[in-house]
């Protein structure tokens, strides 16, 4: 299935990146409260206002920027740490590998939301804690993928050849195994980012990971949930933003994963 043609990708990609233009295209201060609560979309407030009279269009842009940046940085952390942890077992030998596998199985059995909540309980409630709380539950799934891919590409002859030439484990991993993983990692990072976006907005929706009322899609959806009787439409901009992002990442993961599936 080819979901979008090239033009479609360009249009969708630029739609998704609109929040990053917030400093130039936002019309109001996202934290500026006013008397005009819950006014419907009009010329001066493009998406209307929320329960404190804040401009929803500007909040959508700034909030999107925060949400996407949190998702992106936790994805990078998860992928980086996952590569490190996942390759350690392969690097050191079969006994250590077994120990690592047992530890992975254990950590994977703790539900992700509990890990996130535990981190927020222990370390507090800021944006960096939010990033870590989002990234940590995703490290182990990445490590599984890296470990699996490495142990299958380790059996190739070029690894034996390199070892016969006297290369160290570290050299083999860095020069031969990691590059062969790149496309798998790229495809997997899309679905990791999907989970990270979902998890970070779940956490901010629950009221953690920032001051109350900070511009963030999760927080905006929580505020819209409170106002579902008077102004259900306030939930549309952040909800639609999340939906588009997640769907797009999903398609990307499928699209990038297809050559890998074909190889197997």
């Amino acid at each position, binding site marked *: 299935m080819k979901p979008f043609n090239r033009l479609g990708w360009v249009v969708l990609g630029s739609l998704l990146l609109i929040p990053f233009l917030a400093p130039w295209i936002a019309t109001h201060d996202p934290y500026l409260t006013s008397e005009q609560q819950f006014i419907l979309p009009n010329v001066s407030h493009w998406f209307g206002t929320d329960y404190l009279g804040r401009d929803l269009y500007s909040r959508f842009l700034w909030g999107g920027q925060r949400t996407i940046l949190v998702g992106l940085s936790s994805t990078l952390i998860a992928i980086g740490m996952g590569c490190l942890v996942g390759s350690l077992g392969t690097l050191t030998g079969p006994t250590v590998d077994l120990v690592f596998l047992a530890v992975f199985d254990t950590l994977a059995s703790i539900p992700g939301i509990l890990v996130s*909540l535990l981190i927020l309980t222990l370390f507090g409630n800021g944006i960096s804690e939010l990033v870590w709380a989002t990234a940590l539950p995703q490290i182990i799934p990445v490590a599984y993928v890296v470990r699996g891919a490495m142990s299958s590409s380790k059996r190739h002859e070029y690894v034996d050849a390199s070892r016969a030439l006297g290369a160290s484990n570290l050299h083999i991993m860095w020069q031969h195994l990691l590059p062969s993983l790149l496309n798998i990692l790229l495809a997997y990072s899309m679905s990791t980012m999907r989970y990270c976006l979902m998890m970070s907005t779940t956490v901010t929706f629950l009221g953690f990971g920032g001051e109350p009322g900070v511009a963030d899609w999760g927080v905006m959806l929580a505020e819209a*949930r409170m106002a579902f009787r008077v102004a259900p439409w306030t939930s549309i901009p952040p909800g639609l933003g999340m939906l588009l992002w997640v769907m797009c990442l999903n398609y990307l993961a499928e699209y990038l994963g297809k050559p890998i599936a074909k190889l197997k």
Partner: protein
Amino acid sequence: MFLVRAILGVFFRVWLVVTLMFWAFEILPGNTSDENLLSGGGDVSQEQEAHPMVRYWQYFSQILQGDLGQSLSDGQWVTEKIAAQAIPTIQLALLSWVLGIILGVVMGGITANGGYLGQHFLMLENILLGIPVYWSATILLYIFVVLLGWFPAGGGGRMSQLILPSLTLALSLLPSVSLGVRHALYDQLNQNYLMTAKGKGLHNFRILWKHLMPNAMITVIPLIFLELGFLLRGTVLTERLFSRPGLGQVLLRAVLQQDYPVVIGGVILGALLMNVLQVIADLLVWLLDPRVRE
């Protein structure tokens, strides 16, 4: 033999989680006083002098006796606190699980069948996969509470207050079940019995639901059991969304009050639950598929 190994595996993993929790608290600076409260609230000065290994042993033997410590905020036993609120959560999880599986299997069959209907259901599945549960809840609340007035907006206890949360949670479970069913069905496509059924001239509908689906179920059932564990995240959210009483609310309050023993108790019990579900899933495959038994 299989069961013994599985149960030993559960014990090992839960032990590892408990150990991890304990040493994480030992290493973290500034948390030692809380750690003493965690290990049962005994004589603090005496326990501070004890060697970490001794305290670890105490903590571990307490957990083996089913004692997860006392809450920091009101001194209630963690196990009592969790047991008191477990029933609404279990009701919610089970009902949404059953709903999600039924809808998911039907949807998986329809999307695997393809055609006009299948294409549209595939689109619907993609939308459901992307829609955050807190947005779909707001939409459902608006439709069923404000526009139609069928259900109350929140609270717990009555059946009518259970339906809307379960539906929300089932909708978030649906796409992953449907995806699993579809892929399991695709895996069956090159089997010989399919050709036999086609050769007999059976209708596509009958082949799909009577011949392919039962075989696909063997791979789907363990997945479905693991989803029960993933529903935990959904229940935390859904209880907040519909202001229902339950474990999610207990956990969230504990996080807000920095009530470590309750959160840690939740982590340990959550890990135990996931491991037990994994064993049940393995056991079901073993029972259902004679090929695995040999």
